[in-house]
């Protein structure tokens, strides 16, 4: 019974994945329409999975509140706000001023704060990296970062010769060395992504379980 189950899941994944992949290489109307249909189904399933994810999040935090595990007040707050936002969205609709305000005055500022925190975190991480990993790569990394900063940041006395030199150096580093290295990395990532997808299509990887 169990053997049969995973064979069915694998066959379904291979068939649907194969049709969608073939649609990229074969320009045949029926195949293109089929690919589009499968993609629409995938989007619908993904939206349903989002709902499942939210229910799972709710369950995890309810469990914490029930057991009064450490940090449970935060979980309680999350549940209250999650349900509150859901009720407001269902009652007033997603375009309502009140619902939009929740995003505008709570979610967006919190996310912007985290982005700002990122700059501080990176500065601290740079110092930490120099302290912990004293190798040639770290020195090149930090040295390049400093040169790019000097070439990007405004200088106190405006466009002096030194700032122009650093500006030129920054462009040279970014457009020649960094761009070349980034293309090599992107090539490697693309090859890795293709083999990962092929493993799923060939049934070697089964992320949907046995």
């Amino acid at each position, binding site marked *: 019974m169990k053997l049969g189950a995973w064979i069915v899941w694998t066959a379904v994944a291979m068939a649907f994945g194969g049709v969608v992949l073939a649609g990229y290489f074969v320009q045949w109307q029926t195949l293109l329409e089929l690919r589009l249909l499968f993609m629409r189904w995938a989007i619908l399933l993904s939206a349903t999975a989002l709902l499942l994810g939210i229910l799972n999040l709710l369950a995890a935090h309810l469990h914490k509140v029930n057991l009064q595990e450490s940090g449970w007040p935060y979980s309680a707050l999350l549940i209250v706000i999650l349900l509150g936002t859901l009720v407001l969205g269902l009652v007033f609709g997603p375009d309502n001023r009140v619902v939009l305000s929740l995003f505008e005055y709570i979610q967006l500022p919190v996310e912007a704060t985290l982005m700002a925190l990122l700059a501080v975190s990176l500065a601290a991480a740079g110092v930490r990296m120099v302290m912990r990993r004293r190798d040639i790569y770290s020195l090149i990394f930090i040295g390049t970062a400093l040169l790019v900063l000097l070439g990007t940041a405004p200088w106190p006395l405006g466009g002096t010769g030194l700032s122009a030199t650093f500006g030129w150096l920054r462009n040279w580093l970014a457009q020649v060395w960094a761009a070349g290295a980034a293309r090599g990395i992107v090539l490697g990532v693309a090859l890795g992504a293709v083999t990962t997808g*092929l493993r799923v299509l060939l049934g070697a990887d089964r992320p949907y379980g046995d």
Partner: protein
Amino acid sequence: MNFDWVGLAILLVFVFLLLLFAALGRRWPASFRRLPAYEALGAAIERAVEAGERVHVSLGTGSVIGPESAPAMAGLVVLSKVAAATVMSDRPAVATTADGAMAVLAQDTLRTAHARVGAADRYQPTAGRMLGATPYSYAAGLPVVLATEGVSVHILTGSFGAEGALAADFGERRHAFVIAGSDDVHAQALLHATADNPLIGEEVFAGGAYLNAGVFHGASLRAQDVIRVLVILAILAGTLLRTLGIGL
């Protein structure tokens, strides 16, 4: 009916190489270059299991639909191996993501790993969870997970943007073992600075091969290497022809 012959040929060569190296895998074992991050991961997981601490696997902030799903799929393989190693410990591994569908896949992976070692009753559906629906809300939820779950090994293997740097930094601040990789080039630069064990380039896809997840993972790396050499030769040939004024 029109065919993209070039694309189709490359794909078929890829599939052929993958199957060939998978078939040869046992008779002709591959030897991979050293990746200190993956070498240290095994010891870090052992230490966490012995100390009764948790391993956390983050599958990133990308969705299942789209190109950013590939590193998360590779991350699910790592999760499967990590879950198998920690399933009988006091604190089995947990996985988080910013996508609902990916959370379902993480739960399936954890459930399967538990079932394979005969510990299906120990599986908790909340071990695989969605933390937030947007990249930064996901990052905002991470410190609570790391603190309350007693995480000492923090594995970031998925698609991350700039928020990945924050996610790695939260782990470093807890003095956890942090290994982090992403498919995004900019995120990789940030992770190089914030994580003690960064994964560069396609290393994020190599977890399965380095953690012995099966012959197909080793075969993937070999097939990638062959295609990479062919691409490099094509680039060099194109550069040479263009330099000589021969248009293609």
